[in-house]
């Protein structure tokens, strides 16, 4: 792989303006790296011509048709209107945890926003489902319009700003997608910490995968959750329930880290076995790098992607 683009600090990014701007910054950062990447030049299949209207990209103008007919026609490609991407954001209370930088929900939200921006740019349909608070159902149906992106990002911004509530598992959101997609294969991108009881989310992902959906999982964890850097007598309180614990972190660190490592291994193994594109990301990592990793991984899966597009 060629050298990565200059890193964009997630914390600095968070201080930028609205979510669309942040999303665009991330995408541009990622794509500037992508241009130098080996995945450059991936093609799409021609579908039909349509008459040119202002706003269409000039690069898609069919100059040969213009020469013959003296009218401007624009080439349209099939996937631009066929790919449906569901973005799923775990907005449960555990995602509100921030060890020092961005919270997990902020980080995951930004990743998904950038992805929405990118998908919309490619004129694919993108939808949003969040989970966490059982009382509030946030579902943005998939659309390909540019205005839809604005709506989606507004909703996403609201969810991020709320900061994560409730303890509903992403499994419920994934179930809703299974209903929404009506057996049409979709690309589902889940940003979650996967903290739930009985690995319900992993099971739901496996079931969706069995329905031939393409799934990418951004497993978002805070660096503090992976290194447990606490010291001195500490009272830990759960973000999702009333559990409290007064403990000397040094006494439990080793066992905590062992359990965390087992959890990550279980996630990685389960999802890899199911053929899920799994990315363990830390909230202190550059967002554009995470997005780039996701894109690179998707490009590696492009044959499947193409087949999926053909079969509609």
């Amino acid at each position, binding site marked *: 792989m060629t050298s990565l683009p200059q890193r964009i600090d997630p914390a600095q990014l968070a201080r930028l303006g609205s979510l669309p701007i942040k999303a665009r910054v991330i995408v541009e950062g990622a794509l500037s790296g992508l241009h130098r990447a080996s995945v450059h030049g991936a093609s799409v299949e021609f579908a039909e011509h349509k008459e040119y209207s202002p706003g269409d990209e000039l690069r898609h103008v069919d100059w040969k048709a213009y020469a013959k007919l003296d009218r401007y026609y624009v080439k349209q490609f099939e996937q631009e209107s066929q790919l449906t991407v569901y973005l799923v954001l775990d907005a449960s209370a555990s*995602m509100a945890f921030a060890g020092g930088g961005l919270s997990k929900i902020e980080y995951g939200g930004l990743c998904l926003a950038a992805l929405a921006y990118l998908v919309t740019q490619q004129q694919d349909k993108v939808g949003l489902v969040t989970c966490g608070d059982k009382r509030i159902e946030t579902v943005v149906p998939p659309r390909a319009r540019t205005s839809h992106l604005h709506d989606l990002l507004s909703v996403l911004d609201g969810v991020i700003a709320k900061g994560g509530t409730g303890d509903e598992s992403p499994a419920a959101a994934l179930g809703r997608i299974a209903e929404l997609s009506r057996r049409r294969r979709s690309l589902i991108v889940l940003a979650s910490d996967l903290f739930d009881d009985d690995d319900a989310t992993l099971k739901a992902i496996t079931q969706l995968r069995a329905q031939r959906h393409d799934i990418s999982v951004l497993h978002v964890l805070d660096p503090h959750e992976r290194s447990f850097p606490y010291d001195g007598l500490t009272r830990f309180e759960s973000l999702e329930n009333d559990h409290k*614990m007064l403990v000397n972190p040094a006494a439990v660190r080793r066992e905590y880290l062992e*359990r965390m490592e087992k959890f990550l291994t279980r996630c990685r193994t389960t999802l890899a076995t199911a053929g899920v594109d799994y990315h363990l990301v830390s909230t202190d990592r550059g967002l554009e790098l995470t997005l780039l990793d996701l894109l690179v991984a998707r490009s590696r899966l492009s044959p499947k992607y193409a087949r999926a597009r053909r079969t509609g």
Partner: protein
Amino acid sequence: MGFLAPLMLVGVAALGVPIAIHLIGRRHAKLVKFAALDFLLATKRRTARRFQLRERVLLAVRAIACAAVAIALAKPYTSCARKGPEVTRGPQAAVLVIDDSFAAGYQIDGVPWMKRATDEARRILTQLGPEAEVAIVRSAEGSDHPTELTRDHLRLRDHLLALEPSARPADTTRALARAAQLLAASSHLRKTVYLVSLAAKTGLRAEDPPWGKDGPSLVIVDTRPPAMPNLAITSLRVDAEPGTGSRGVAFEAEIANFGDAKTSVEVSLTIADRVVARGMVDLPAHEHRTKRFLAALPAGSRASDAWVSLTPDALPVDDRRWIRASLRDQVRVLLVDGDPRTVRHDDELFYLEAALRPGDREDSGTQVRSITAEELAGIEPRARGKAGALDLEEFDVVVLANVAALPVERVNVLATWVRAGGGILVAPGDRVDSADYDRTMLPLLPQSLRDPIDTTWGATADDRDSRALRLVKWESDHPIFAPFSKTAPELADAKFYKISLLGPTTDTADRKVLARFTNGAAALVEASIGTGRSLLFTSTIDRDWNDLPIHPGFLPLVQQAVRHLARKHASFGVADHVVGSSVSLPTSDLKKLEVRGPDNTSATFEGDRIEGRANVRFTRTDHAGIFRVAGTDQAGTTRDREELTFVVNLDPRGSDLTPAPPSALPASGTGGGSSPVDNASRRVELWHSLAAALLLLLLAEGILVQR
């Protein structure tokens, strides 16, 4: 319990400090809202209890440590009954007299008393303090020089730790005298002797006090258990026992019970590393008994190591006693033929010689020399090297067989020899005239002779046997008749046609008729003459007056008689060396002598130590057991000298652990020390222990914090 500085107890309030810190610390614990709390909770399920316990223990340790500081500063003390002597701390001169006799190995609950004694001595050393000048004196007889008075208590401790029971008895009085000498040279005003001893009466001599009125004060450290029963073998001797064969020996072990209760103990005899006999001995309290074992030395050797041992008791070292049993030379018999004949079977000694050396075998145990009565004229008591003279010292037994009465001077020579331990057997015959015997031979006879009677006189050939006398009564318990039953036909069938009668009883000591004829006349009379013995047989030793020589009983009878007469010479192998004594060893023109002890140590005599000396003196008899000697002759050949092997045993005095009466102990002098041990209460300061406990608490706190 009391406190020397009770005001310091105010500091106990510091107990609240760690509790307050603990509670405040809990309240001020950092708060972290954590997403992965489930992982922690799962962890906590395992560690929560341990963590809580650790926190509580830590809190308790810290609280106790704070309180302990205050309590230690308050200097707590308690009172307890005094078990040991009161030891005054400070500048002084003190001597620790410690019993390291072999009795110090007395086992009390499986631990030697010596350990108890050295522990007590070290405790005293600690209590005396570093300013005290202390010396150690060992009280075993012949112990090395004591240590000097010194403040180097570390060295004294090492000395105490290295102490082991010796193999010698205690000589407490001498040790106390040595202690007094050491203290006399000290300039300290306070002079004390601490006696850590079993204080057995055998080690103390009341008539020889170690100091006078101005002597040091004496503190007796009583470490004796209430009772110290002990069994010991106090002596062991071995004698030849010809009655059990040519290699027969009899061991006599004296076993003493120094305890207050009657007991019985198993005694065993071991010869050449093999237990050959066992027996039980009942021992009343404070009595001793003799156990006799009959045994035969192993074939092929003239000497064997042997020991008698008891079932081990609390003091096992004196439950075994060694001896070296050697076969002495054969019984040397001088046969004086009073009626020599040219026809062999008519000779007076024909049957006797055949019986004493059956088959003329070397191992018959008898060395026989025959001479005529005339040759007896040349006999002298000590005629070694004198030409033509017979040396009586070369014989153990003389048999006068039908020898006419000897001249007075010859009789005197023989009588002197008998009184010195010789044995003589006199048998009459036709050449014996009772009147002549009365005149000269009485010093050799147990009883005077009278004229013989012929029981068959006037009898026909058919009546001859029926009128013959027979042996009917004999002392079957006597060694001579030990091989025979009370009615042994091999003796009872013999016919005696003519016997000599005996005159009135003489004044010979221990005269005893050992056998009688059917007519009641004496057949065999024994008497002690000086340390020797005399036997008088009232018939002939050949077939002239009887047919005993052709009966099976003749051979054992004469052999037993000769061995019995020779018994006086058979005492040998007495273990007469005790630990610490010196042993004189003949050099026998050897170039080098090496003595190997039972503890595998060796001492070599060579060069100037042996050249030109007839004897060398071996003094390193520090252990009981068998000491073997190897000698190198002038040709350079080295071999074991069995004949020089000797045995060293414990001094039996040390086995008597009876405590000495108070009067046997020296009076405490005016040395400024404390009085002997009392049972008053004493103050025990506890703050040292508290300080130590505090250190441990702090250590525990540190470990807990690290975990």
